């Protein structure tokens, strides 16, 4: 480690200028570990916001160790969380109650899931649905059965139920019927389910159908938990929900099989590890991201800086990076090859990604990549070589694998990302109109030139639905509700602001004085000032244009959360899987299976093999 560093007076002006580009929240943490020269070098090669913050670029981002699901599981694993099934009463139809108690880092919480008899309806898990297979609730602390049962009417009332301060969230799930049923039937017959078939179904048995926490329905928000509480971190409640639903999916199929046959098989640990938990998310997540520029910055800036630090790293600390990357490339290539190839045409063919990852792997194995810049690290030269021919999606997967293979850098930067995400917007009223206009022109050139003059560039508006307030997208010329348009049009707001500022006859006025005349500019002024401190905070897209594809942004969001192999559906949905390969509760206790992402299908030995070179031969006989 570099140790304590004081930025010395001997530092070159060039290095000093580069370091000035570091946001305040990141500067101390980064310079405490890396030399100023290394950081300055990294900043110099960082990809620019114009390169990576467009909708088309963001949709390609892949999950990495920075993603919440990964960092959450890593924390569970590192801190040896204890997850104990406390109660399991599930009948052969799937009706029942399942309760887990979780002891983690000196805190205890309880997770209960209930279900009615499972029918044959395949539930999609849309935000407006009120009929769901599994109803879950997370309590703070250890609670008794009486409290759990008292909460059941509330969680069964999906959009109407209220709760108390002793719950953190309610969360729902649906079966992936065909594959869930296949697992139950196979286990009841005393054998393992066909893992190749399960892989075809996305690699999960239960799909999460919503998480309602952060204070909703009266529950306690994660910010209200003590700072040392393991769920006092953005999205960790959601991640716990996903992890427990994954575990519950195993308990359900095993219990239902056992009800049918006392000698039923149990799922093999290898198959359990291979299976994740499904999820699908809609356009509301895209609208949410627009409102959180500092959150987007916290993730994107940190990710880009880590990539740059890894590519510019030299010395013994990083000597193993290339070898570690090679191992990850081999596994990732196989993972893509084994995924369902039948995906939306807008997404890069997974077989192409697999082949290109293989090619990069071979470059390392053969040491055959060109050294275009001898002064740079081998990793830098490899990355540069691949960029010349690999598809953009392959390159983003490579970025994630580079990050994953650089643990010394990753470890340092996790708190930096968290600091970025916890920030709040604050207006600086003392800046003059002239100073502010210069800031606007510097940081929002992309928005100021965005054409919003014609119909196709303003075709849509976003609104909240009557059913439950979820975000939807309507046609401006057709649908009612334009007067209650949800804020997504950053470029339009910035253009209006710029126009007002230029019309202001007093460039010497403070922003505080200006806002007395233009109070409706307050939000946008605050946002611009915030983003000036938080690079990589704005999504450079026209959310209201005809050409805008919401699923691009949902894919990005899901990758931040940790979803693998995101697959768009009808531009408004993304479906995929979380925590595939993650360690099981028993692994958390022993510290086993720490390297788990992008798992390959476990070998089941001789038996029916449905996959043939990544293709499904026949499924008809496996209903």
């Amino acid at each position, binding site marked *: 480690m570099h140790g304590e560093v004081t930025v010395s007076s001997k530092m070159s002006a060039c290095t000093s200028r580069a370091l000035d580009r570091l946001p305040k929240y990141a500067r101390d943490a980064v310079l405490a570990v890396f030399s100023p020269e290394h950081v300055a070098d990294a900043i110099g090669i960082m990809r620019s916001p114009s390169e990576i913050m467009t909708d088309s670029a963001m949709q390609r981002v892949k999950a990495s160790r920075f993603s919440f699901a990964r960092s959450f599981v890593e924390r569970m694993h590192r801190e040896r969380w204890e997850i104990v099934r406390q109660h399991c009463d599930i009948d052969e139809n799937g009706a029942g109650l399942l309760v887990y108690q979780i002891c983690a880092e000196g805190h205890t919480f309880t997770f209960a899931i209930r279900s009615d008899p499972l029918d044959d309806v395949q539930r999609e898990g*849309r*935000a*407006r649905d009120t009929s769901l297979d599994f109803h879950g609730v997370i309590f703070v602390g250890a609670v008794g059965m009486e409290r759990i049962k008292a909460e059941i009417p509330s969680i069964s009332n999906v959009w109407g139920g*209220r709760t*108390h*301060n002793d719950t953190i969230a309610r969360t729902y799930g649906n079966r992936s019927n065909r594959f869930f049923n296949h697992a139950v039937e196979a286990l009841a017959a005393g054998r393992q389910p066909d893992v190749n078939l399960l892989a075809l179904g996305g690699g999960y048995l239960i799909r999460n159908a919503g998480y309602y926490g*952060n*204070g*909703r*329905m*009266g*529950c*306690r*928000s994660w*910010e*209200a938990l003590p700072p040392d509480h393991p769920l006092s971190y953005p999205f960790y409640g959601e991640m716990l929900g996903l992890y427990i639903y994954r575990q519950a999916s195993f308990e359900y199929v095993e219990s239902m099989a056992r009800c049918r046959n006392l000698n039923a098989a149990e799922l093999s640990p290898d198959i359990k590890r291979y299976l994740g938990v499904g999820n699908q998310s*809609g*356009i509301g997540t895209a609208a949410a991201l627009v409102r959180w520029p500092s959150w987007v910055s916290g993730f994107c800036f940190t990710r880009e800086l880590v990539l740059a630090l890894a590519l510019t790293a030299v010395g013994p600390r990083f000597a193993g990076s290339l070898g570690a990357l090679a191992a990850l490339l081999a596994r990732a290539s196989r993972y893509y090859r084994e995924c369902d190839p039948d995906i939306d045409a807008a997404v890069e063919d997974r077989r192409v990604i697999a082949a290109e990852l293989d090619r990069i792997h071979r470059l390392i194995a053969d040491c055959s990549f060109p050294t275009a810049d001898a002064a740079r690290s081998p990793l830098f030269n490899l990355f540069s070589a691949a960029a010349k021919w690999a598809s953009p999606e392959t390159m983003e997967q490579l970025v994630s694998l580079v990050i994953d293979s650089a643990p010394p850098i990753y470890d340092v930067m996790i708190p930096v990302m968290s600091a970025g995400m916890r920030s709040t*917007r*604050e*207006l*600086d*009223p*003392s800046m003059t109109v002239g100073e502010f206009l210069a800031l606007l022109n510097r940081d929002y050139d992309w928005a100021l030139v965005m054409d919003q003059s014609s119909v196709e560039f303003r075709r849509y508006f976003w*609104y*909240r*639905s*009557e*059913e439950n*307030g*979820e*975000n*939807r*997208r*309507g046609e401006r010329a*057709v*649908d*009612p*509700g334009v007067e*209650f*348009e949800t*804020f997504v049009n950053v470029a339009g*707001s910035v253009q209006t602001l710029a126009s007002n500022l230029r019309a202001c006859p007093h460039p010497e006025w*403070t*922003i*505080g*004085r200006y*806002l*007395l*005349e233009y*109070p*409706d*500019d*307050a*939000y*946008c002024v*605050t946002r611009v000032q915030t983003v000036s401190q938080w690079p990589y905070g704005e999504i450079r897209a026209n959310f209201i244009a005809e050409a805008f594809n*919401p699923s691009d942004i949902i894919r990005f969001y899901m990758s931040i959360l940790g979803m693998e192999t995101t697959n768009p559906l009808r531009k*408004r*949905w993304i479906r995929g899987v979380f925590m595939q390969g993650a360690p099981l509760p028993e692994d958390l206790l022993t510290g086993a299976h720490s390297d788990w992402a992008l798992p390959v299908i476990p070998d089941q030995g001789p038996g029916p093999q449905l996959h043939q070179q990544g293709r499904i031969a026949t499924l008809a006989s496996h209903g």
Partner: protein
Amino acid sequence: MVEPFHMSLAELSKIAPDALRGVGFPFPTVERSGQMIVWGEAVHHMGLRFLNVHHERIRASLDKKCTVTDANSNRVIIDGHGKSVLEIGPRAIDVSSAAAACEGVGVAVVRNTFGLFLLGEAIQHAAKRGLGIVILYKGGASIGGDEFDGTGILARLPAAFDSVSVDQRLNVLGGTKALDAFQFAKSFLERNKNDEPDLSSFALIGIALQSNTSDLSIEALPAEGEPEWCKTTDFEQRLREAMMLGLSTNLGDWDGLTMLLHRMRVPTSERSLQQAG
């Protein structure tokens, strides 16, 4: 009988801006004004009540524009034209804060406004900017005269304020009757700029002061009613408690809030369902 209702602070923080849009606020102002509603509920248990009682009055003033009737480098006098503190409060604090940052002291005098109890939120905002602040306000029939508008002083004073220790300064404030606060304001302005405004009919004065300290608690000094009318309220502590324990309101006020919230939701239709994601 009032039916109690539990909600969380985070929940109200999410809902309040949308409810204000339901009142008619434009989007760009609801984030900041929503924070005031949350603060009013968490600290004084009156945020929702205020909105439910006054939403029509607030709505009626939305189309009006506040005007600056007098201004110099560190002082503005604003006619709020009946707008609530939800709208005009943040702007008044911003303009006085900006002047304080540039000139050392900044003063905003606002006339013709209501909802003065919400101004405590502005103190916390100023504190985040490293400023001390004194807010003097005068309620009364002409500007509202209901349970939300008393007369008094809200203060968060910088330690080095005017060479007088904080205890002494608060003692001075605490030892006066409410209307003496106006004398304090006058003398304050005289000492600082020697160009006092006409204070005879002000609704509120926010005076922001440059400060390099942040070690002072926030003091609220309600003006009338009790023998010991000077009391201290730790706003931060109340917010922390509200965050930890949630908020207790009543079902009627909650229903009023959700009624406003639903105003901005678009009625369902087959087309709308097709647009869902």
